[in-house]
Structures are given as structure tokens and as C-alpha cells.
């Protein structure tokens, strides 16, 4: 699929992570002990042979740029292709485009110059393992104008803001809706020919449209041939603190962990060169995920420790997510909490949240 360009459009992703995204966008939210949300979709694209990925960003993208600047980690340090982070630096005085169409208008060179015949769109908040080559094969087989990826799922809080698809027997999408009783959740992933995309973009801009997906595709369902591709397996939609916490905890189920990570196609992320985890004599760790660089002398249960966390003696951590380089002082007690990066918990402190509303401590706080 080297003739397909990936477009990760972060412009209209909901930002409902409170403190966790005050200084970063959702796509760069740390996840699963060593990753950022964007790593999953980016790795899926790379595994499908995509060598060129554009990322539309609007705000809070410093952390994302830092992360993606190590593009070699995804094998995207290429002469041909690579990662293109496209910030909103828009200076064309003749520009009449609105909304996320401004990204298209102001980066036309990238689409004209690139050799891609197809474009594959995605956001970063749907964490799953998906074979985009199979999506492409399906697209060619059905002769669709646009192929959209959906997932049949039980009703869940985090899907309330997702589009649903009404699909005919022939797999053709009849309608997009927000009907919560419809189990076919649209994953914001879709594939089409580049020239069709450019036509749709031109039409959208000419009509003063503000959203490419809504105006270019959803509103055109009658005239475009839109086909659905069904993703099966584990899907984690992460768009709120609650869904972030819920899905983090489900990584502790071996079948979820195996499907997301233990395939021959790994999830790529920035390399940190941390040493293996050091378990001291007094360590008691159960049902937890632990990333390299941690040093553990205390008790850890049902939790996720990111890289370089220090758990000192007498500490108890339960049902919690502890991000990179946090230090938990002697005798501290943490239950149902999320600590953002570089938090220091002083000796003997107690922090208890609830399973439904985990207690979130923002970056670099000392408690």
C-alpha cells in the first residue's frame, strides 16, 4: 500500500480528558505503559505498507511533534514519504476554506506532489489492531467510492459521540446517524481514491462547508457508493477520562493484551533506552503491566506502571495508572488514581478515587 497516503485528522477529535490534555492533544495521551494513543493507528498504517502519513493538528501539538520527530521508530524516516505534521500555519490571502477544510486547502502541495493514488483517513482515539490491507482489498472488491470501517459493539458510554452506520444487505451504507441503538459504530477510518478526495474537497470549499467528513461524505451518501468494512476483535474507544481508565484496566486481561501487542506486528513507539524493571526483595506485584526503567520495592496490584516509575518500600498501589517518571514515596497509598507524568507522591500520602471517577493528578505535581 505504498501508493496510499495516511491522513490522521486530529482537528475535530473531542477533547474530554480534563487535566490529562491541558498541555497535550488526545492523540499524544500516554497509554498502555509506554505508548501514545497515536502509536496504534500509526503502527497499523506502517504494517500495511503505508510510507507517507500526514497529521492534521490544530492545537496543543508540541508534545505530539516531540513524539513523532523520532520518526525512525515507526520506520518513517524515509527519503520517499515520512511523517508530515501539519500545523495551522495558514497565510493564503485568497483562502476561503473553513473548518477542517483549511488543512486540505493549505496543504494542497502535499497531495499534488505525492505519488499516492489512495488516501486512508483516521483519527487517533480508536485503539485496535486492524489490517488496512484487508480494508484496501475490500475496497477494490466492492468497487466502492468510499470504504468506511465499522465495528459491531454493545452500547457503551464512549460510543455516544460516534456515528452509526445503517448498512444494507449488499454492505452499502445507506445512512450515517447518531442512533445509539444501532450497533454499527463508525471508527472514523475511511479509504478512497485521492482524485475523488480532491474533487470532494473542491466541492466542499466551493459550498462553504466546514467539515470534510460531514459535508463531503455523510451528506453525499445517496450519490457516493459508500461500502462498510467490518473490523472484528478488540476495540477500545478512548475519548474521555472514564473510557481511558476503563480500557487501561482491560489491558490487564491477557486476551486483550495478547491481541493488541503479541502479534507479529508490534506497536511502535519512541525509544527510551530504559533498563529492565528492577524488582527488589520487598516487591509484591500482581496483575499489573510494568514498563522498563521502573524500580519496585512496594506493593502493586491491578495497575499500569509507565517507564521509569519508582515505587518505594511500604507503598501500596491499587487499580491505578502511574505515568512516566513518577516517584511514590515510602508508605504512600494510592487507589483508583491516574498520575500524569513526573508526579511526586511524598512519603505516607494517601490518595483514593473511585472506580467510576478515578482521581487524576496533573503533570509534575508534588503531593
Amino acid at each position, binding site marked *: 500500500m505504498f501508493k496510499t497516503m495516511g491522513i490522521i485528522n486530529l482537528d475535530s477529535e473531542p477533547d474530554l480528558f480534563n487535566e490529562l490534555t491541558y498541555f497535550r492533544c488526545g492523540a499524544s495521551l500516554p497509554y498502555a505503559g509506554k505508548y501514545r494513543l497515536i502509536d496504534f493507528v500509526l503502527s497499523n498504517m506502517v504494517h500495511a505498507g503505508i510510507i507517507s502519513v500526514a497529521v492534521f493538528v490544530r492545537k496543543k501539538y508540541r508534545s505530539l511533534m516531540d513524539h513523532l520527530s523520532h520518526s525512525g521508530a515507526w520506520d518513517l524516516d524515509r527519503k520517499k514519504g515520512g511523517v508530515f505534521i501539519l500545523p495551522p500555519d495558514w497565510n493564503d490571502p485568497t483562502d476561503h476554506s473553513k473548518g477542517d477544510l483549511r488543512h486540505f486547502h493549505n496543504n494542497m502541495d502535499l497531495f499534488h506532489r505525492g505519488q499516492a493514488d489512495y488516501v486512508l483517513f483516521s483519527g487517533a482515539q480508536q485503539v485496535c489492531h486492524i489490517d488496512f490491507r484487508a480494508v484496501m482489498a475490500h475496497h477494490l472488491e466492492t468497487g466502492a467510492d468510499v470504504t468506511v470501517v465499522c465495528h459491531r459493539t454493545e452500547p457503551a458510554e464512549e460510543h455516544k459521540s460516534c456515528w452509526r452506520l445503517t448498512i444494507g444487505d449488499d454492505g452499502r451504507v445507506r445512512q450515517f446517524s447518531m442512533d445509539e441503538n444501532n450497533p454499527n459504530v463508525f471508527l472514523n477510518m475511511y479509504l478512497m481514491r485521492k482524485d475523488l478526495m480532491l474533487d470532494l474537497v473542491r466541492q466542499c470549499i466551493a459550498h462553504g462547508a466546514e467539515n470534510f467528513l460531514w459535508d463531503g461524505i455523510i451528506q453525499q451518501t445517496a450519490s457516493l457508493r459508500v461500502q462498510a468494512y467490518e473490523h472484528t476483535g478488540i476495540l477500545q474507544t478512548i475519548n474521555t477520562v472514564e473510557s481511558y481508565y476503563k480500557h487501561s484496566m482491560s489491558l490487564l486481561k491477557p486476551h486483550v493484551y495478547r491481541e493488541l501487542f503479541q502479534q507479529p506486528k508490534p506497536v511502535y513507539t519512541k525509544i527510551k533506552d530504559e533498563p529492565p524493571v528492577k524488582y527488589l526483595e520487598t516487591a509484591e506485584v500482581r496483575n499489573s503491566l*510494568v514498563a522498563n526503567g521502573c524500580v519496585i520495592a512496594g506493593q502493586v496490584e491491578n495497575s499500569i506502571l509507565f517507564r521509569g516509575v519508582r515505587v518505594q518500600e511500604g507503598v501500596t498501589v491499587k487499580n491505578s495508572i502511574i505515568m512516566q517518571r513518577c516517584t511514590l514515596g515510602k508508605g504512600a497509598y494510592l487507589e483508583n488514581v491516574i498520575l500524569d507524568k513526573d508526579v511526586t507522591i511524598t512519603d505516607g500520602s494517601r490518595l483514593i478515587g473511585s472506580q467510576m471517577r478515578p482521581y487524576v493528578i496533573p503533570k509534575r505535581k508534588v503531593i
Partner: protein
Amino acid sequence: MNRKECVVMLLAGGEGRRLKSLTKKMAKPAVHFGGKYRIIDFALSNCTNSGMETVGVLTQYEPMVLNSYIGIGSPWDLDRQNGGVSVLPPFSEQKGASWYLGTAHAIFLNFAFIEQYQPDHVLILSGDHIYKMDYSLMLQFHKEKDADVTIAAIEVPWKDASRFGIMETDAHHRIVAFREKPAEPVSNLASMGIYIFKWPVLKTYLTEDDQNPDSSHDFGKDVIPRMLRENCRMFAYRFQGYWRDVGTVESLWEANMDLLADNPELNLNDPNWRIYSRNPYQPPHYIAPTATVKSSLINEGCMVYGDVCHSVLFYDVHVGEGSVIRDSVIMPHVRIGRNVKITRAIIGEGAVIADGVQIGTDDEDGEITLIDEHSIMHPPSALHY
């Protein structure tokens, strides 16, 4: 090519025969160490952390794993426009081809590599040792002493002294005597096999050595003794800290066990002196509700359902429920079934240990059990079907 003050030549062609099956398919510097690393990572990381970014790696014995591991050197930040890492295998030339006959001969055959950087000094290292050392401090000492050659030296236990090149120095650290593996050592100051030569001096002595039919073309046996006889300015640079030659199965096991102390002498978790390695892209490891892990070093990608005590687990090792791993080193991709008992052993890469197998003994004086890579171990009963 830009001039470089100091070029590093890293000898990585050693067979490491006493590591038995661990070096059947790879050179000693490629052998796994410390849950994540290969032995050569220590020398390469020391180079990059010391600001020595021009490194020739001399390979010969079973170089395939080592060559692909080093690649263009990016894990150690040695992928440079100017300098960086170069792998230097033996080669043929117009007058014929030759293997590297000894450490000195290997350097001699690669004069052209060194010459292109027109260095003042050449640092010669071996890729066989586990240690953290700032070579820039040694170079500074070498320049201050205006030495022809400076040899890094460490005090070793007297009982081991006869295994090393042993030297005697005067009050100004000048070397007055040097003997390779003496039967009756008169000093316990051992050569670490790390030399800094003035490049013109090295050129002269290696050219002479090459023409000497009686020479075994070895630094310790031939070149250093000859320079001493001819009154060269030779100095010992005293190194203090952790340094191990992991040349045998026992010493490799011991050095791994050394890392398990609460405050080990060799600190791998030092942000100012990272040991770099090629990254296998594994997820964080998973410790199951049935597991117990104490006094151990565990890398990413592992899934642990059993008990791990005082052991080192490399990446992607699975330990089944009811299994007990004690005082052992488990290499990458090993699969350990249920109710397995492993004590005082090294399990080679990719081995599969079936349910109920017992490996090793508690006997503290007994040998370390070594299981070959990719072997499949069944319990004895399974053989009588």
C-alpha cells in the same frame, strides 16, 4: 574526511569458546547480558557517552548476528555523517587474502581505515567486557603524560592475577614491567585490554610486528613487551569500578546475578550514562495474579504467571503457573510451561521448557546448567510413551 583526534578500534572477533553453546552461532560480544543487552553494548555505549564517535568494529568469528545487530549504529547514536560506526571484517587485497591472525594484526590490516581520519591517537578496545568507563578521561591522562601508550589497569583479586596481563608501575604510573598471564604474579594490577596509542607509534610498532615471523601478532604477548624493552613511554591508567570479563558460563551467570543486588555495583539505571541497545519493540511486561517476583530484573514483553526469584528475564519470556525460577538467567523468547523448576541455570534463546521439567540443582558449589538455544526440554516421563 574530517580529521579526528582519536579513532576507536573495537576488537569483536572473539570466539569465546568457554561460553560453550552460547557462542555456537555468534561471537562473544554478541552474547546476551543483563536482561536487555548484548556484551558489546557496554563498549559501544561507553564510546558514545565519552564523545568518541568514530568506531571501527573488527569482526571475524560468526559475524552474522553481530553485523546485523550493529547495523549503521543508530541505537548508540553512532550513525554519523562524519565518522560513526564501521564494521571491518577481514578482506582480500591484490597480494591475497588473510584472516586476522591476532589482535595486533587485525589493527595492522585496517591502517587505511584509521589513516583516513588522520588521528593523533588510537583507542583499542575489546568487545568482551561489562563495565562503564569514560574514555575521554583516559585520553586526557594519556595526553598529560605524553605517553606512547596508556593501558587501562584494574586491581584484581590475587588468586585471579595469573589469568591477566599483569604490570608493575612506578610512583608516576609509568609501567616498568609487563607480563602476559604470569604463573607467579608479582602484582595484581591487571591490563583491561584497553590501550590508547599515539598513532605514529602504533603504526611503527605494528608494521615491525607484521614483519616478525616469530610474533603471534598479539598486543599483550608481542607488541606491549617489545615497546617496554625499547623504553617507550608507557603508563597505566587506574580504573576503579565494576569491570568483568564474562568469558565463561560461570562468570556470565555471576555477572548477571551481580545486577540483582538492591544497589548493584554496576548501575544500569543511570540517566547520565545510559547503556544503549537495539530495541525489540516489546510491550510492557505482564505480571499475572498468580505470580510472585522478587529480587529480579525483568524486561518488556514477558508474561509471568509463576514465581521468579533472584533471576534475570530477557524480553518476551513466558513463565507458566506453578513454575519456580530461582538464581537463573532466561534468554529472549524462552517459553516455560507450568510447574517447571529452574535453579542456577542459563536458558538459551528461544528454548521451550515443557510442563513439569526440572533444570539445575540447589547445590551452591555445583556447575551452572546451560540449556542450548532453541532446544526443547521434555520431562523424563514423556520419553516413555
